[in-house]
C-alpha cells in the first residue's frame, strides 16, 4: 500500500507540472500566432475603437504571463472561461455584431460546450476501440502462437494493408459504399446510435494494425521462451499455458505500447474522424474553434487532452507493476 501511495503522489505531482507546462505552451502559441480573434468576434465592419475596447475587456492586450496567471486563477475557481464565438443557445454568434453584442455573459461557458460534446467522443472512442479489439486480439494471438502458418500471413497482410490507408480516405470510401451508394447506414452528423457505426469502423481500421502487430509480437516472444514448453511437459494444456501464463507475461509490453502510442493515436484519429463525419464531439468542436480563433475552447481541450494522456500513462505504469512485480522500481 505504501508503495502505491508513494507512486501515485510522485507521479501525480509530476503529471500536474507537465499539464501546467502544456497549458502554457498552447496558451502562448495561440497568442503569438497570427490571426486576431477580435476580428472574428466583431466581424469585418467593426471600427478600430470597438475592437480595441473588446480586446481590453477580454484581457487580450495584457502581457501573456499576466493573462496566463489570470487564466490559471480562474481555472482554480473552476471557471474555464466562455467561448469567444459560441452563444448560450448554441450556434455561432460571430460575424456582424456590434461591440455590445459580444458581452461575455452571452457566450456559452467552455465547460458546457465540452460537456455536451464529450459523450459523443466517448461513444465513438469506445466503439472504435472495441471493434479494433474484436478483430486484433484473436488474430494477434493466433498469429503469435502459430507464427509460420496462415494466421501469421493474414495478420501481416491485413496490418500492412490497413496501416497504409489514411483515415480520411477510408472514411470517404466507406461513406460512399455503405451510405451514399447503398443507403444501408447513415453517415453524416448524429441523430441516433446508428450514426456511430461507420466512424467507429474508420477508427478501428486505424488502430487495428498497431494492435495486431504488438499483440502477435508480444505473444510470439513468450511462446518461444523455455517456460512455455516446460509448462506443457509438466502436463499443463497449451490452452492453460496460453491464457494463464503467456498472456499475462505479454500484457506488460502491450500495456506500455497501448499507453504511449495507442491513446495518442486514438485521440488524433477521433479528431479527424469526427471532422470527416461532422460527428458532434470534441474533435469537431476543437477544429472549428481553431478556425474561429476561439482561444478558450482550444486551451481547455488541450489541457483536458494532456491530462488524459498523463493519467493514462500513470495508470499503465501502475498496472504493469501490479501485473509483473519484478518491475517495482
Amino acid at each position: 500500500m505504501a508503495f502505491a501511495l508513494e507512486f501515485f503522489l510522485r507521479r501525480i505531482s509530476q503529471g500536474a507540472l507537465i499539464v501546467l507546462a502544456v497549458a502554457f505552451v498552447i496558451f502562448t502559441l495561440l497568442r503569438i500566432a497570427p490571426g486576431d480573434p477580435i476580428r472574428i468576434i466583431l466581424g469585418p465592419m467593426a471600427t478600430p475603437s470597438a475592437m480595441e475596447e473588446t480586446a481590453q475587456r477580454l484581457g487580450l492586450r495584457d502581457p501573456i504571463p499576466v493573462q496566463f496567471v489570470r487564466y490559471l486563477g480562474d481555472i482554480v475557481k473552476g471557471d474555464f472561461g466562455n467561448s469567444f464565438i459560441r452563444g448560450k443557445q448554441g450556434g455561432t454568434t460571430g460575424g456582424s455584431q456590434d461591440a455590445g453584442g459580444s458581452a461575455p455573459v452571452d457566450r456559452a461557458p467552455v465547460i458546457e460546450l465540452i460537456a455536451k460534446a464529450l459523450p459523443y467522443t466517448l461513444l465513438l472512442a469506445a466503439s472504435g476501440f472495441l471493434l479494433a479489439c474484436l478483430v486484433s486480439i484473436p488474430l494477434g494471438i493466433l498469429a503469435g502462437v502459430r507464427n509460420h502458418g496462415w494466421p501469421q500471413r493474414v495478420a501481416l497482410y491485413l496490418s500492412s494493408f490497413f496501416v497504409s490507408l489514411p483515415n480520411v480516405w477510408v472514411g470517404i470510401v466507406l461513406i460512399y459504399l455503405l451510405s451514399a451508394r447503398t443507403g444501408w447506414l447513415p453517415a453524416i452528423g448524429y441523430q441516433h446510435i446508428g450514426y456511430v457505426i461507420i466512424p467507429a469502423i474508420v477508427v478501428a481500421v486505424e488502430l487495428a494494425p498497431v494492435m495486431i502487430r504488438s499483440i502477435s509480437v508480444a505473444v510470439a516472444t513468450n511462446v518461444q521462451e523455455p517456460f512455455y514448453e516446460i509448462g506443457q511437459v509438466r502436463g499443463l494444456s497449451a490452452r492453460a499455458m496460453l491464457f494463464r501464463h503467456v498472456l499475462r507475461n505479454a500484457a506488460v509490453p502491450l500495456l506500455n505500447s497501448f499507453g504511449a502510442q495507442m491513446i495518442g493515436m486514438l485521440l488524433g484519429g477521433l479528431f479527424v474522424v469526427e471532422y470527416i463525419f461532422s460527428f458532434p464531439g470534441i474533435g469537431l468542436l476543437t477544429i472549428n474553434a481553431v478556425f474561429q480563433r476561439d482561444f478558450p475552447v482550444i486551451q481547455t481541450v488541450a489541457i483536458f487532452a494532456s491530462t488524459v494522456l498523463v493519467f493514462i500513462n500513470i495508470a499503465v505504469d501502475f498496472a504493469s507493476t501490479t501485473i509483473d512485480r519484478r518491475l517495482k522500481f
Partner: protein
Amino acid sequence: MAIASSPPQTFAAPARGQSVNARILRLAWRSPEMKVASALFLALCLLTLFGPFVIDASATKISVADKFLPPIFMEGGKLPHILGTDQLGRDLLLRSLIGLRNAFLIGVVSVVLMFVLGCAIGIYSGYRGGWTDVVLMRITDIQMSIPVIILAITILGMSRPNPVTIIAVLVLSGWPIYARVARSVTLAERQKEYVRAARIIGASDLRIMVRHIAPSILPPIAFVAVLDVARMMIFEAIFGFIGIGIQPPTPTFGTIIAGGTQYLLNA
C-alpha cells in the same frame, strides 16, 4: 517494428568481406513480397519523376469543359486524362503524382530531421545523466503530452500553412519518441567496455558520442524511422483534408480527397 517471428532460415555461409547489411538485403530479396514492393516503389518513383513531362495535361489549369471525365478505362474517358479529371477539369493522375511527390518529400525531410534532432538530444541526455538528463526528459514528457493533432491544428490553423511549417509541426511532435529510445539505449551503451576504453585514451565527450555511441546505436532506430515516413505522409494527407496542409492550387492527397467529397452523394 521488429519482426520477431521470422521463420527459421538456413543461412548460407557468409562470403568473406560481405557486410551484414548486404546479407540481410540478399535474404530479403528472396521473398516475393520484397520483389513486389520494390517494383511498385520503383514504378511510382519513375512515374512521379517523369510523369509530369510525359502526360500532356496540367495539374492546376482549370478547364471546365473537361470536368468530371471518367478514367480512360471507363466509358466516356479520353486521353490524355488516364485517370479522368476532377470537378474543375484538372487531370487527376497528374495531380495525384504531384501530391505523392509533395507528401513523400515532406515525409522524408521531416523524419530525417526528427531522427537527427531526437537522437542527438537522446544520446546527449543519456550520456550526460544527472540534471541535464532530468531536464531534457521532462521536456520530452511535456512534448509527448501534447497530442499531435492539437499541436498541428493550433499551429497550422492559425498561421498560413506551407511545407516548412508543416515539416516543423511534424518534427516538433515526432522527436520525443526518438529521444526516448536513443536515451535508453545510450544508458546501456555508456557502461560498455569500448566507451570506457575510449574515455581512458582521452577521447572527448563529443567524440565519444558522435564517433562511438551514435554509429553503434543508430542503425536499428533508423530502421524504424523508415516506417515513420509513411506515417508522416498520412499526416500530410490528413492536414490537407482538413484544410491546414499545403494550400491550393498545389495538389496534395488531402485536398484531392476533400475536393471529391463534395460530389460523393451525386456520384
